[in-house]
């Protein structure tokens, strides 16, 4: 048994037993269901009138989601924002819990390379991101089908699906530095605080026109698909992810673990 497979066993067992993937998957269902509900309300004027304010909101959403193309656009934005938050929670738990639970010290003086331990954690995060994307994707398509949205041609569905997957990949990459924040902050607070900061900065960057070069804005811009992103944008995101992983590795290798 290689050391990586052993570490993968340990990481997946911890995650499954904690039920965190289950809770985050359930959390990821919220947005597709909410969007579908609003579309349903907008398409049923009687219900809309009865619900008042919700009806007004639903009309706004419905305006942009009356066919598959618009619905998938909306849906991709949900992936960018919702999956970011859920993945920050996940990565904060995977790395930060070792510090808050005091189990980090059991991982340090062992005949398994720290890089293998970290790689197993990052693979878990990738699988977790895949699971969340799949859940959002499947539930979103199911809702679209149930609502019998028009304009569901194969090219539109494929293009929309490709954009969802690409947005999910970019979102996963910009979440990787949070492994470093969870490690350096020895828990959950720093990564969660940094996530709030990143969302605020991402919006600000878009407003002042720097969204294409600010890593945490790029998945949102891709999701909005208003205009093509510069070629450098995906690279900025990839580099951000790699820097996050390298920073985490360096911190685990070099920082004193005195708690």
């Amino acid at each position, binding site marked *: *048994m*290689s*050391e990586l497979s*052993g*570490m993968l*066993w*340990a990481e997946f*067992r*911890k995650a499954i*037993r*904690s*039920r965190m993937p289950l809770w985050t998957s359930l959390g990821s269902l919220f947005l597709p269901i909410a969007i579908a509900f609003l579309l349903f309300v907008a398409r049923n004027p009687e219900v809309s009138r009865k619900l008042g304010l919700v009806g007004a909101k639903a009309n706004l959403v419905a305006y942009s989601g009356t066919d598959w193309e618009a619905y998938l656009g909306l849906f991709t934005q949900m992936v960018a924002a919702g999956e970011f938050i859920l993945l920050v929670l996940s990565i904060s738990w995977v790395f930060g819990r070792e510090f808050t*639970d*005091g*189990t980090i*010290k*059991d*991982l*340090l*003086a*062992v*005949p*398994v*390379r*720290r890089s293998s331990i970290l790689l197993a954690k990052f693979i878990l995060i990738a699988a977790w991101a895949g699971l969340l994307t799949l859940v959002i994707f499947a539930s979103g398509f199911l809702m679209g089908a149930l609502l019998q949205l028009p304009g569901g041609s194969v090219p539109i569905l494929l293009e929309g699906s490709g954009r969802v997957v690409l947005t999910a990949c970019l979102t996963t990459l910009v979440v990787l530095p949070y492994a470093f924040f969870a490690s350096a902050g020895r828990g959950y607070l720093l990564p969660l605080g940094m996530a709030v900061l990143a969302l605020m900065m991402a919006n600000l960057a878009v407003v002042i026109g720097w969204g294409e070069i600010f890593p945490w804005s790029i998945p949102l811009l891709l999701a909005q698909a208003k205009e093509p992103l510069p070629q450098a944008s995906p690279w900025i995101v990839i580099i951000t992810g790699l820097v996050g992983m390298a920073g985490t590795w360096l911190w*685990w*290798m*070099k920082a*004193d*673990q*005195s708690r």
Partner: protein
Amino acid sequence: MKTAIETESLGKRYGEIQAVEGLSLRVSEGEIYAFLGLNGAGKTTTIRMLLGMIKPTAGSATVLGTRVRMGSVKPWAAVGYMVEDPHAYEELTVRENLEVARRLHPGTPGKAVGEIIERLGLAAYADRRTGTLSHGNAQRLGLAKAMLHKPRLLILDEPANGLDPMGIVEIRELLLELTAGQGGTVFLSSHILAEVSRLAGRVGIIHQGRLLREMDAATLERERSRRFLLNVREIEPARKVLLAAGHPATRQMDGTLELQDKDAIEKPEEINRLLVEAGFPPTRLVVEEEPLEEFFLRLVGMGENRHE
């Protein structure tokens, strides 16, 4: 005899605070070495440096012939450890936690998990989530993780913390078995001298980050001061008799006479005979050993003023 642990002028400074300074010690394979100190003396910092968890700011440490470096995989295949309070993944059972520990030591056979569960008396809790364990059983699990892969060297930080008297005896027997039966080495820290005096072959005393003394168990016993206490009905005449015989006695507040001269302590029957012949038969005679705690405080220079 081979050396299991060797440190040379090991030191760790955190800003203005010198946590450990100039620590040089040597532990041979097959011995139980106790590292004794008050809370905050530098025991855990030293252990973390030995395990490559923190980087020394001075000196070096060698464990089982390998110079300790942070992030290295050597020599940990042959080392088991427990640092401070034991922690485990609370969502996993005892058995699953040990399975994780087994995978952290590749090459450890699957049956080792069942064996260590039996050996440490965890069978009744094996399939219970560790979040529900008592502190004593969590301590057992910590020790089980440390001993799972049959290490040549065990480094244990306060291993008896939280254990009931039976648990302490069991742990003592386990550690003695590991050293005497299997040639293993144990380096343990403690702040309780009574606990280590029954177990350790050698004791190192650390105070304020510095190694004050190293001594073997026999020296430890020898250096504990003893005193001879006696009570008589007529105190002053009896004291004069003793003084005339070359045994200066001091009178305590409660009227007890205290003798500290070696002859009196080693031959209390002589003192008894002397006083009986002088017509002052003792009503009580006792040779009292200095309590271990007081001995320890005396060694670290806190015995005099701790009541202030």
